[in-house]
């Protein structure tokens, strides 16, 4: 599904390298997790994959289902099946959540040469999915993320993911700021989307989410590199001992 080879990324503005050769392959239907200390480059990886400006890719390749996505605009990557749930979802005054999501769904359909979803069908879909995530009608009507609590914003990210049905889902700390019940809702939302054709890259600091979303592979990112890869046990080890052992090991 996703093949990242020796990815090197610097900031465009300053001469600072953030990703220092990331190698990562996620097979179709698999759930991978990335953990790592603050500032190690996890969000940067998500942003670069989604096509955010301000970063310069100085080396390496990224393929999504065999297509080089680094040359694509963010909207093309989205239409190709990539989705990033933001660590800090953006508030957009004046743009209704519903309008936003319908525009997004139909823009992707159009880009893929599919028929647009009618207003009625869209409404039916979104209502059902919002209900499962306990997002009420009022939140759908409000401007995108405006006045949403931290947890509501995260649930809104999952709602978008659920409506857009991407192939490659990147979740950047979707669990942070969630209460225990909301975490379960989000995990259920993710698990409901798990199919053999859809992959996940879950960035998190905590083992707790992984109790609900069982990862196949766990990676540890330190200072712009994946320094260790293992099974679910690796996340447990981090939870119990922090990164000290791993850092010592790779040093």
């Amino acid at each position, binding site marked *: 599904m996703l093949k990242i080879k020796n990815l090197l990324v610097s900031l465009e503005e300053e001469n600072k390298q953030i990703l220092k050769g990331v190698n990562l392959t996620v097979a179709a239907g698999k759930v991978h997790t990335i953990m790592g200390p603050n500032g190690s480059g996890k969000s940067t990886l998500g942003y670069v994959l989604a096509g955010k*400006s301000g970063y310069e890719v100085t080396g390496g390749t990224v393929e999504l289902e065999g297509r080089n996505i680094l040359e694509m*605009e963010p*909207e093309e990557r*989205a239409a190709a099946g990539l989705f990033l749930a933001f660590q800090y*979802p*953006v508030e*957009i*005054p004046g*743009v209704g959540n519903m309008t936003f999501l319908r525009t997004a769904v139909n*823009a992707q359909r159009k880009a893929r040469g599919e028929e647009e979803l009618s207003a009625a069908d869209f409404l039916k879909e979104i209502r059902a999915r919002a209900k499962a995530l306990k997002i009420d009608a009022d939140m759908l009507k409000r401007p995108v993320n405006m006045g949403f609590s931290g947890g509501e914003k995260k649930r809104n990210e999952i709602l978008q993911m659920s409506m857009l049905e991407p192939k490659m889902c990147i979740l950047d700390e979707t669990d942070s700021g969630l209460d225990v019940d909301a975490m379960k809702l989000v995990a259920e939302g993710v698990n409901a989307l798990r199919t053999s054709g859809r992959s996940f890259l879950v960035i998190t600091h905590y083992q707790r989410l992984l109790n609900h979303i069982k990862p196949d592979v766990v990676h540890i990112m330190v200072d712009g590199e994946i320094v260790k890869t293992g099974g679910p046990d690796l996340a447990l080890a981090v939870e119990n001992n922090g990164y000290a052992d791993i850092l010592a090991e790779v040093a």
Partner: protein
Amino acid sequence: MARLKAKYDLAERLLASAPAGGAKWVHDARTAAAARLREMGAPHRRDEYWKYTDPSALTAATARAAVFEDPAETPPFAGLDRVRIVFVDGVYASDLSSDLSDADVVIEPLADAMEKDTHWANGLYGVLEARGQARVNRPLAALNTARAVEGFTIHVTGRARKPVSFVYIHRDATSDAMIHHVIRLEEGAEVTLLENGPVAARSNIVTEIDIPDTARFNHVRAQGRDHERLCATAIFARLGRESIFKSFTLTVNGKLTRNECVAELTGNDAIAHVAGASAGDGTYHHDDTVFITHDAVNCESRQVFKKVLRNGAAGVFQGKILVQPDAQKTDGYQISQGLLLDEDSIFQAKPELEIYADDVACSHGSTVGAIDEGMIFYLTSRGIPRREAQDMLTFAFLGEAVDEIEDETLADEIREKLAGWISRHSA
């Protein structure tokens, strides 16, 4: 002194051809207005309130030719049940207008009213305009009072069922229009005024509105589609106790537009809301100059002005809240914002507060900025093409001003026009 002399010479020249006819009260009003203009001189770039807007095209001897290309687009308010009053190049066209006797407000062409020895407009015509000159010179409005023969007098005695709608058609390439409306409501009366159309190659429109105790006046105006328009408008409103004045203007295109609004809150618990959404692409200069005076207790005023500018377009906002010593419990709010879609465009704002009462809540803010790249990334990362994302944000930005319109049907009319403009000017 040479410069100053030019200002007064120009005033003389502007006043050169006095209109014929008119009753004595009209003659008196014109003479007084001419004296005001002579006193203050014609507008000049050196004047405090013309610093950001060059008035010379508005006072040139003739109107620069402006061809209006009919875009064959349905004008706003077309589907509404309304009293339609049509002007062609600034001249009332009765054959194109509704039957005025059917309206539940008393509507009379200004020219007819001016021939009557006694008319209620005596005591209002030029009077609110003159009051509006107290703190800031408004020479074009004084000129208008001294020279206008076109326009309407409207007397509203109850709650008008249908809006009164001025439709300004532009046909002649060099038409130069001077229009003056006088509107008087009775206590508790209510009316909605709609205005749309390109007017003329150059136009000067003054509207005086007397809104006594508990009366309500709603105004929605769409200035659009004509790229070459030169236009100056001035609204003078006087508000009584518990009265409400709400005015919204959408401006798209036009070479030069200066919209002045002067509102005086003279009775307790009155409310004045003035808002504007403006969008310009290329040779576009748009100026909102607003002056709100609080002269009574517990009044509320609100100014919301938003402008989107691209390809060298210029936006100006000069907004003032004056709170007189006795105007305690004043709630005054003002926001002006410019969204620049490129680095060639410019937005200049001059917010002013002058407060003499101590128990007041007044706030003002002004921002100017480019489109937010963080928002663009969020939208595009969901699959929305950049151009569409930018249009959504542009629409949302101006939409906050459109939201000031109370009547949802009218707000939707404006939103439709705005969306049309944004999609035509998308890049």
